[in-house]
Every structure is written in structure tokens, then in C-alpha cells.
């Protein structure tokens, strides 16, 4: 085409990034990579390799090592060996390493960007302008935390050896989200990059070497799912951090249930993109471009469900179609294309299959005449209309450039539709009214809500999901907590296995004399007889009969959860109100303390009983104090945005109380849960369930709304299974022996509810450091980051 013709046609010309330097780097490694273990390249023990290729043209880029169980073992051993010295470094010394990593990433930013584009297929513009700058930012930010660690987290210590598994959609960025906080907090790392995109992780390994990071602090083992599985199952790993599909996340939850491994999961999503009639529609359309067409839609927080207010739906759809028509697909190294290649043939097939299923279900599929390159894995931008909440394309994560659009009538319906999903990763809300936008943001079940923007990320702002989008946060202060635990916790001794209730003894005993005392279940503010119609004996210190407790069963748990979920208004009330009720509870316990202690003494002895009452009153005061003080934060990411980090309650929390301190143990767990605004279903002490009778009388007289606390007595080991697997329970706290804790973890995998346990260890309930405060409140809440832009 002559210049004169170009002058008239005004087409975009090709603007290819030269990949030469990246190829030079690959050639320098002879296009063959081993694992990076203990600071050196190691050939795979089984001498197996696999190829990684450019998805835009199918060309092989290099071969990489297939990690075996023994490779993982070598890496974990190296990380373990490196741990003491790494932890012995001063915070400043660790900060210097993180700073050097950030600097080195910046110095080689273009090579990393080109490598990422070659390996992943995403546009170079995204790698260059989004991924790699965010990677550097993540290391800078965490270099700062490394330095401040002891000042800001005086009571915490590192988990130890951390196993990390990352996905292929933002390979190096996800690596930075994993490695930076782990190193800043003094952990050592074994990381497995995704099978499709190992190259930038290997380039990062080389950077670790270049800056002189001590051997073994970061180990990179490449491989497929089996390599990841070996890492998850390795007995000497203290924590697993995983980003990937919900399906694999669930498998990891199950696989780690019978270990003490900490777990954080960042999983799938089907995030709503909500457009109100008063929004700037043109901006909303550009938001969608970033929301669903960034990285070809292969983004866990992609705004894949468009919810449009009915009044503007047709106008908006017309604008979207126009905009889609100007999207350009092309070779990913072209600096001015919008859509690159899909990462693999497998993924392309999945996108095609889901879109076809959607069409079969009656959706209307619209695609512009986007010119797609021949060869390579490409899929055009796609809009599906005539979809409903029942449509597969509205429920399942497609992980492709596919937008499904439907309408809503009112703000309340927008929220209902948005929350009608098992996921809860992110949401985007568009309205020119900040009041409307914040009102909606507060009601969405999502870890990140972007107001009038979308897909914004920063190291200072936690990222992570609600519900089956996982748990734990990456970024911000909350992200660091995923790699820390209270310093005393790991060395706490194991609880001895808890004996079964006294009812197994055959010795007959008669009930105490006087008027019969019937302790029932407490559900929805009512004292109820158990569904089973059975009771269980409760024996004292010397085997004497103290009374009988209701024998709750599966259906009682069901009813209690229903009642707890109905009481969700507790969270919407003010924190001040919750504090007032807790103070009233303290007042009432103080009045009746003597009498309760006397009864409790028969089960635990006089000394413990009176101490439990005394500490309980203080503990109630403590959480009444906390109720309106466990505030969130306001972050200042380096954009024209603020991000409001709110500590939100989880919802309904199941609580399995420790057996050993019937009153104080109950309150130590239930108080933070309800102070934060959760409702709860509690299984009280196995040893002395009769405490329920005293507690519900206290709750009743303290104006605690019906259903906020529900108590089901019975065999803990059975009830906890029902609670742990109940999909209406958002989190479960289990403080018991090792076997109960493992069962709870294993049974929680269904809806991936958050699990907080004592890991079967002894908690000193009379020691304030161990038994109350932030550690508990952090587990009673989840952080929602609401991004609000400045300017018009």
C-alpha cells in the first residue's frame, strides 16, 4: 500500500515488538530448562521434559523439566534448609533482597514482557503496561513490608516453607503476588508455575540468582498437575497458596485436610458488571473492554456477567456492539491489538463448547467481523444475549472473551442477580451517583468491587474472593497475614484426643434431686426440644450425673442454620448496637456469675469455674470494645482512586467449642464471631453441654436478637460434619482435637467455606495473648476492597 493510499485508508499498521532479545535469552539457555532448586539449575530427576510453545503460532519456544515427587522433595528440602538463616536475617536485610528483585525486574522489564507474550499469547501492550509494572510494584511494596515486619506484626511469625501454585493467565504477576509477601514475611518458597507458561518464572529464578538471593529461599519446579499435587501433599510444607480453578482448589482443600498446612485459595469467578441507567454509558462500555476483553477474558475476575438496568439495555447493547466491532485481534506482539491468542487449544475448546451450549440453550450469539489471524488459538469477542440466571453461560466461568448480558429492573434486583452465584470474586458497579454505587457495593458478595472502573489491581489493596472464589487475600496488610501466624501457635502442644461423652459409661446414676432442669436446644431465639427425642447424660468430675442435655442431630443443625441465616440483619445494624448488647450480656453474666459458677464447678471444679466466669465477663467487655473498632482501611493505590478496605462479616459461622472450658471457650469463640456481625450455630463443650442452658438465658435477657446465636448440643463429632458440609454455612471454627479438626477441614470442601481451627493444639483460654483479639477478629471477617475513582 502506497503512502497516498494509507493516507486515505487510515488503517492501523502493524507495530510489532521485536522479540529478538527474548529469543537470545532462550538460546542462551539452549532452549532447555531444568528446575531452579537451591539456587542452581537442576535437571529433572526422571529426565522428563515437556515443550512450551507460542499459542499464537504453535511454535515451540523451549523445553522445560517435568517435576517429579523427588524434584519437589529436593526443592522442599532446600527451602527448609534455607529457612533458619533467612528468618534470622534482619527485616532490613530481607527488605534489601526484595528491593533488589524489584529493581532487577524493572531493569529487564521488556524482556520479561516479551517472554510473557510469547509464552501466553496475551497482547504485548498488556504485559508491558500492566503485568510487568504491577510485578515490580508488588516487590517494591513488599520490600517495604519486609522492613516494617517486626514493627507492624510484633506477635506474628512466618509460616515456614510455603508451596505455591500459580495459573497461566498472569504468569509473572501471579508469581509476584505469591512470592513477594511470602519472602517479606520470612518464609521460603517452592513455586510451581503453570504448565502452559513456565518461562517468566524461570526468568525470575535467574533474577533471584543475579541478585544473590540465598540458595533455597526461592525454588521453582516446573511441571503439570501431578507436580502440583506432589507439592500439595508434601509433608514438610507449612502452607499452600494456590491460584487457579475452583475444582482444583477444592481438591487441594481435601488433600490438605489431614495436615496442619495453612491454605489460601484464589479461585474462579463469574463477576457481575452492573450498569445503572444513570451511568456514563460510553465509559461503562470502555470498562467492559477492560472487564471482559482484557487478556482475552482469561481473567478470574473478568466482568463476564453484564447486568443492565432495563431502561438503558438496548442503548447499551448497541454501544457494546459498536465497540466490539472496533476491537482488533492479532499477533500478540503487535503493540496496537486488543485481543491476542487464547493460551492453548484445550482452553479454546472449552470456550467453544460453552458458547455452543449457550446457543443450544437459546442464547443469541453476536460476534463482530473481527479479522482473526490464521493459525494459532484465537476466539472473537462474543456477546450472548437472551440469557437468564438458569443459562449455563451465566453460571459457569468461561474464561474467554465472552460476555453474557441480561437486564434488571431495580437496584434490589441487581444485587439479587449479582449475588446469585456460587462465586464471589469481584464486581463492577457503574452509576454516576456515588450513593447508589456505594449502597450496591456494600451489598455485593465479592472481595473486590470496582465503582466506575474495573480490573484495577495494586499491591496495597487486597485481592481475593468470597464464597467459592476462595479465601485469603493477596496484597495489602491482609495479604501478609496469610503468610504469618501468632508466634506461640506452632509450638502450642497438641490436645489429647477428647473422650467420648459420659453416656458411654454403663454405671447407673440418678439425676440430681429437686425440680427437674431441662436444657434444650436454642434455635431462632426459642428453646426447642431436639428432633431426635433423645437426651444425653452429662456427668461431673467424679462421674456423678449432672443432668441431661438435648441430643441434637442433623435436622437440628439444619434448623439452626436456617435461623442463623434469617438473622442476617444483625450485620446491617450498627456496630455500636452490637457493642451495647454485648455490654448488657456482661452485665447479666456478672449478676448471675455466682450461680453459673456453682453449677459449672460440678463439671470443672470450683477454681476453674469461678475463673471462667471472671474471664468471661472481661472477654465480653473486650469484644464489646472491639465491636466498633475493628475498622477497615483506606488505601491509596497509585492511580486516581481510593480503595476502601472494609472488614465485613462472613455470614453464618459454625462454631465447634473446645471441650475443656465450657463457658470461657464458648464465649471466646462466639463473641468475636457476633461482634463482627456474623450469626452463628454453636456446638458447645462436649464435656459439659449443659452450659447451653445458662448461656441462652443470658442471651435472652440481653436483647440479643433471635437467631444470632443458635446452640445445638449433642455429639460434637457428628454435628460438626453436618455443619462443616452445610452449604449455607460460610465459615466454620473448630477448636477441638486433631481428628475433629481434620474432619471439619475435609467436610468444608463442598462450598469451600473458610476454616479456622486450633490445629488440634492447646489454647490457653486464660491467656489473653492466645485467646482473644485481632487474630480471632481477622478470622471472623473478610476484607472487601471497594475502589472508588476520583474525578469526573
Amino acid at each position, binding site marked *: 500500500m502506497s503512502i*497516498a493510499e494509507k493516507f486515505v485508508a*487510515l488503517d492501523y499498521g502493524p507495530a510489532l515488538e521485536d522479540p529478538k532479545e527474548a529469543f537470545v535469552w532462550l538460546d542462551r539457555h539452549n532452549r532447555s530448562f531444568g528446575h531452579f532448586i537451591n539456587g542452581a539449575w537442576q535437571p529433572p530427576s526422571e529426565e522428563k521434559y515437556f515443550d512450551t510453545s507460542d499459542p499464537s503460532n504453535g511454535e515451540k519456544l523451549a523445553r522445560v523439566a517435568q517435576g517429579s515427587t523427588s524434584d519437589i522433595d529436593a526443592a522442599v528440602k532446600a527451602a527448609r534448609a534455607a529457612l533458619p538463616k533467612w528468618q534470622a536475617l534482619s527485616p532490613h536485610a530481607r527488605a534489601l533482597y526484595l528491593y533488589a528483585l524489584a529493581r532487577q525486574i524493572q531493569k529487564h522489564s521488556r524482556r520479561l514482557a516479551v517472554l510473557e507474550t510469547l509464552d501466553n499469547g496475551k497482547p504485548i501492550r498488556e504485559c508491558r503496561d500492566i503485568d510487568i509494572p504491577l510485578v515490580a510494584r508488588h516487590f517494591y511494596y513488599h520490600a517495604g513490608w519486609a522492613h516494617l515486619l517486626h514493627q507492624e506484626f510484633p506477635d506474628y511469625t512466618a509460616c515456614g516453607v510455603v508451596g505455591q501454585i500459580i495459573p497461566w493467565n498472569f504468569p509473572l504477576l501471579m508469581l509476584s503476588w505469591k512470592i513477594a509477601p511470602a519472602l517479606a514475611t520470612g518464609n521460603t518458597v517452592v513455586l510451581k508455575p503453570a504448565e502452559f507458561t513456565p518461562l517468566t518464572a524461570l526468568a525470575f529464578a535467574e533474577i533471584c540468582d543475579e541478585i544473590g538471593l540465598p540458595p533455597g529461599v526461592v525454588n521453582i519446579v516446573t511441571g503439570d498437575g501431578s507436580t502440583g499435587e506432589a507439592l500439595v501433599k508434601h509433608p514438610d510444607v507449612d502452607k499452600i497458596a494456590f491460584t487457579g480453578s475452583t475444582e482444583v482448589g477444592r481438591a487441594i482443600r481435601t488433600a490438605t485436610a489431614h495436615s496442619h498446612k495453612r491454605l489460601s485459595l484464589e479461585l474462579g469467578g463469574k463477576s457481575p458488571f452492573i450498569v445503572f441507567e444513570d451511568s456514563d454509558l460510553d465509559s461503562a462500555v470502555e470498562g467492559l473492554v477492560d472487564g471482559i476483553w482484557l487478556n482475552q477474558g482469561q481473567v478470574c475476575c473478568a466482568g463476564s456477567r453484564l447486568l443492565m438496568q432495563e431502561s438503558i439495555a438496548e442503548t447499551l447493547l448497541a454501544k457494546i456492539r459498536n465497540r466490539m466491532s472496533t476491537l482488533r485481534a492479532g499477533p500478540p506482539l503487535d503493540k496496537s491489538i486488543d485481543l491476542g491468542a487464547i493460551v492453548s487449544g484445550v482452553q479454546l475448546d472449552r470456550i467453544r463448547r460453552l458458547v455452543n451450549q449457550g446457543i443450544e440453550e437459546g442464547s443469541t450469539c453476536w460476534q463482530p467481523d473481527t479479522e482473526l489471524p490464521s493459525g494459532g488459538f484465537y476466539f472473537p469477542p462474543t456477546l450472548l444475549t437472551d440469557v437468564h440466571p438458569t443459562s449455563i453461560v451465566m453460571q459457569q466461568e468461561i474464561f474467554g472473551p465472552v460476555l453474557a448480558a441480561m437486564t434488571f429492573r431495580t437496584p434490589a434486583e441487581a444485587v439479587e442477580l449479582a449475588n446469585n452465584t456460587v462465586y464471589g470474586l469481584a464486581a463492577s458497579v457503574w452509576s454516576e451517583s456515588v450513593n447508589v454505587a456505594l449502597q450496591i457495593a456494600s451489598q455485593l458478595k465479592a472481595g473486590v468491587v470496582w465503582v466506575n472502573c474495573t480490573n484495577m489491581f495494586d499491591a496495597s489493596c487486597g485481592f481475593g474472593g468470597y464464597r467459592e472464589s476462595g479465601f485469603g487475600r493477596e496484597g495489602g496488610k491482609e495479604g501478609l497475614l496469610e503468610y504469618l501466624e501468632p508466634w506461640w501457635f506452632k509450638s502450642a502442644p497438641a490436645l489429647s484426643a477428647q473422650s467420648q461423652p459420659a453416656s458411654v459409661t454403663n454405671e447407673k446414676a440418678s439425676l440430681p434431686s429437686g425440680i427437674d432442669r431441662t436444657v434444650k436446644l436454642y434455635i431462632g431465639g426459642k428453646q426447642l426440644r431436639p428432633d431426635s427425642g433423645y437426651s444425653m447424660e452429662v456427668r461431673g468430675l467424679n462421674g456423678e450425673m449432672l443432668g441431661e442435655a438435648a441430643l441434637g442431630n442433623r435436622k437440628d443443625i439444619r434448623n439452626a442454620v436456617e435461623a442463623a441465616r434469617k438473622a442476617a440483619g444483625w450485620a446491617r445494624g450498627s456496630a455500636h448496637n452490637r457493642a451495647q448488647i454485648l455490654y448488657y450480656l456482661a452485665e447479666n453474666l456478672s449478676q448471675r456469675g455466682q450461680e453459673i459458677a456453682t453449677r459449672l464447678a460440678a463439671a470443672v471444679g470450683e477454681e476453674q469455674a469461678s475463673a471462667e466466669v471472671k474471664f468471661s465477663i472481661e472477654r465480653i467487655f473486650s469484644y464489646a470494645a472491639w465491636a466498633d473498632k475493628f475498622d477497615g482501611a483506606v488505601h491509596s493505590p497509585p492511580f486516581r482512586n481510593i480503595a476502601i478496605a472494609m472488614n465485613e462479616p462472613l455470614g453464618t459461622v459454625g462454631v465447634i467449642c473446645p471441650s475443656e472450658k465450657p463457658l470461657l471457650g464458648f464465649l471466646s469463640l462466639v463473641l468475636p464471631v457476633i461482634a463482627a456481625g456474623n450469626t452463628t450455630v454453636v456446638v458447645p463443650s462436649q464435656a459439659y453441654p449443659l452450659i447451653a442452658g445458662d448461656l441462652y438465658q443470658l442471651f435472652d435477657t440481653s436483647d440479643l436478637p433471635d437467631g444470632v446465636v443458635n446452640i445445638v448440643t449433642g455429639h460434637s463429632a457428628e454435628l460438626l460434619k453436618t455443619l462443616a458440609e452445610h452449604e449455607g454455612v460460610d465459615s466454620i471454627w473448630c477448636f477441638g482435637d486433631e481428628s475433629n479438626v481434620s474432619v471439619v477441614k475435609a467436610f468444608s470442601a463442598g462450598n469451600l467455606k473458610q476454616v479456622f481451627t486450633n490445629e488440634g493444639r492447646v489454647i490457653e483460654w486464660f491467656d489473653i495473648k492466645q485467646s482473644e483479639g485481632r487474630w480471632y477478629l481477622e478470622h471472623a471477617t473478610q476484607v472487601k476492597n471497594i475502589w472508588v475513582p476520583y474525578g469526573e
Partner: protein
Amino acid sequence: MDLTTLSGDDTEERVRRLCAKAVRPIQHELIERLAVEPLKVQVAAVCVYHRFVETARRALDGSDVRVAAVSTGFPAGLSALSTRVAEIRSSVAAGAHEIDVVITRALVFGARWQELYDEIAEFKNACGSVHMKVILGTGDLLTLRNVARASFVAMMAGADFIKTSTGKEPNNATLPVGFVMTRAIREYGEETGMAVGFKPAGGIRSAKESIEWLALMKEELGVSWMNSSLFRFGASGLLNDIERQLEHHVTGRYSADYRHPIA
């Protein structure tokens, strides 16, 4: 591009120099080496004060370059309405092909949209068939909402073009303002079927910046808008940089400003 000279020290000779550059904006040698003679590359208009309309018209006689007069109490636009309207009529009578009017920013701040509409409609009436560009003074309006509202009122009142700035406001054409104005033009077109032109003016000095604006036009309004009847740069310094970049394209060597004849 509209080549512009709007300074207190303008003289007839200065205007004639500008006109000479307008007719032959790029050195012949470059045109030849780019093989673009058939395009007959010229600027769209020369933009001057009323006083120089006739000078410019004579200097441009025989070319397709149009004469645009800034009018209506440019740049503040605060003289009496009758004076402003009379000014338009004089420039039209003097042979201006295009009139660049400025709006009364006070009417925007006061949300006196009807008055603004009436004022611009009166300007249009005075222009008759002569092409009218309405300068919003976006650097004064400051908020994007005001820019959007003023854009709509100007178009409804008969603007053939909406233009960002006089070049005298503290802020000139910025991309956010460009987005708002082009989107307003798009929406107006969708509502009425009428194509209104866009002229960013002031502050665009490099070829690289001009590419950003061209991309904005292509993305927001499409290629059909990318010709001189619907899109103009209002600039004085931009041309020299474009010439330098063209020379670089032809020779492979970076060029220097003094190598290209000034206006």
C-alpha cells in the same frame, strides 16, 4: 489542520507568510519522495483575526485553503452581543469562509442553557451559509460535564464544528476533553443523523500527540470523520514537527527544525 496566527503582534506580512506555508505546508522534495503529489497536501484553513481576513483571502486566492476568522470578541467573548454579531457579519462580508465564535462561559457556569442556545443560534444566523465553529473554551469550563452540556447546546444551535479552545485559556485541548466532545458528537449524530466536526486546538505540538488524537477520532467517530470537513487540528507549531517526522521517515535520519521552512 488550520494554521493559526492570533497574536497582538500580527501584521499583514506575517499573515501572508502563514498563507504561503498553508498552500505549501511540506517541502516539495519530501512530497516527491513520499510519492504523495496526488494528495495535494494543503492545510484546511488559515485562521486569523478579522483585520487580516482580506489579506489572507488575497494571499490564498487560487488555492483551496479557506480563510477562517476568529470572531465574537475572541478570545474572551465578552463584548456586547450586538458587537459580536456585527463582527461576524463584517468577517463574512470580508470574505471569510469560516467563522470561529466563542461562547460566553458565564452562561455555562450559570447553567443558562437557553440563553447560550439563543446566543449561538444568533451567531449562526449571522454566519448564514458560512461555516461556523463554536469554541467552548474547555480550559475555562474545566468540568467534563460542562464540556458535554456545552457541546450539545452548541450543536443544537447550529455549530458545524465544535472546537476545544481559543489557545488562550490556561489549559488547551486535552484527551479527556476530546473524549467527551467526540462522544457528544457521536451521540448527537445518532440522535439527529447530522455530522458535526471536531477541532482540538492549542497545545498540540508534536506529531506523536497528533497520532493520539487521530486514534481518538478513529476509535470514537470512525474514519468517515477523519477528513478536513469534519476534523481539524488548530495549531501553529505542530506542522514543523510533522515535517521533521516525515523527513525521518524518508531518510531514516532524525531531522532538525531549522531544515523546514517556517510560516
